[in-house]
């Protein structure tokens, strides 16, 4: 059993072509890569919207806003 075309490095090195496993299945790798990329954006968009909803429900208050504002005013850290 072998996943690739390389059996040994004893022959003419100049004749060696692709060295990765499963040569010939590149179209499938590409498809999986594309799905992974689009799927990632899809998940992230939903995750971020959910996160903002939860934050607005649980963490937004006058007290927190004042605390953040006071800290920003007291600590601009310009030096």
């Amino acid at each position, binding site marked *: 059993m072998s996943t690739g075309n390389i059996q040994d490095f004893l022959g003419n090195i100049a004749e060696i*072509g692709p*060295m990765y496993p499963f040569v*010939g299945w*590149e179209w499938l790798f590409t498809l999986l890569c594309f799905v992974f990329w689009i799927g990632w954006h899809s998940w992230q968009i939903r995750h971020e919207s959910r996160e903002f909803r*939860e*934050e607005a429900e649980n963490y937004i208050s006058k007290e927190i806003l004042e605390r953040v504002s006071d800290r920003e005013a007291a600590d601009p850290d310009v030096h």
Partner: protein
Amino acid sequence: MANELTALSTIFTEFYYWVTVVFMFLIHVGFCIYEVGVSRRKNHMHTLMKNTMIVPLVTVTFYLFGWWIYSAFPNGPFIIGDLVEAPWATPWSELMGSHMGGVPASAGLTADDTASWARLNGVLWAAFLLFSWTAASIVSGACIERIRSNAFWILAVLIGSVMWIIDAAWGWHPQGWMVQILGYHDAYASGVIHAIAGGFALGILVVLGPRIGRFREDGSPRVIPQHNPWLTTVGLFLIYTGFWGFYAACNIPILDVQQGDSIFFSATNIYLVPTTLSAITFNFLMSLAGGLMAGYIVSKGDAFWTYSSGLAGIIAASAGNDLYHPIQAMFIAAAGVVFMYKMHHWVEQKFKIDDAVGAVAVHGYAGFFGVCIAGFVLWGYPSSPNPEYAVITPWGQIAGAIIMFWVLGFAPAFLVAKLLAKLNMLRIPMEIELVGLDVALEIKAEIAAKDLIGAEREKAAAIGID
């Protein structure tokens, strides 16, 4: 590789680009540090993550289609010709993986393709990819503290893996149609990276709007203090450092440039015109110096603008830095800095544009200036070794600058940002903007810290420490 000379030049070229990639990584580190330094404490982690995730997203998409666009689009397509065959650059190509350059396993590739691309495809792909990260990262800083990450990452893919690489195929490819028809010359990417990224950032900012409180009711701007100017300036220093790799990656290190039967090996610029690393080293440093000196004067010693002006100076001289005299490079850099600084403040006042890090100015206006000025200073120079291509002219360069900044930069960003805004996906909710993007992280950290301290106090009491 059958002989030592071929092996040496090929493996040297492979190693050369590999090293440029390592240097250019520092640009991204610098941008992350710089943005976090500029952002307010309540937004640090989101600002960092927004920029960090450019790396994987642009990498994956540049693998899927960005690299192919560069090789396939020099004719437009359909401006001066069809799509160009580029079988080594498709994501399913065997040459997009480990390969010794031997017999091709797939149809569509020739033995010549595999012999020439097996060792150079990955390192050239990576060098261009690092330019892609830079383009997206330039845009990132302009819209901090109010853009949704999901919107920014869609826009980052658009600039990093589509728009900038189209302009590279048009104006930064030895056979690009802009080089052939306009005589477009942009050796170190004043336009093809910086002007387009600046224009793209402006297109987003027009739709996104300013941060809450940035402008008074009378329209005058308020200062939003940087959280940490030291971090900002260290970030800019790192960007300077990475810029060395950027400059090196814009060259081909060794090529026979002699027409006819003789042989003469030299480094070349991206258009295959001979140059030397010595020349660009002079010009890189002299344009940095001109930018810093002019920036110090025009901003009256403001650290943020002085550092930014060093970068803007290099960008303003970059289009012609393969050919300028070093003192020309210095004065062009200085003039470019004055132009971008004045433009930034005029646009800010006039149009209420909140460019948080000055990215539109440093990259967009300085890059636009750099492309145009090269047309006057290098007027009549050949744009290519091919004598049939147009020579460098002011009108060719001005047209090129407009294509970069407005057509490929501003317009697509404006349209996509409009669409995202319509879908309510562009800007973060106002209440989150007020308390900061890191509000949940901070409160959860506070609860965790209190919990831990409580446990520690209990333990202390148990062993008799009160």
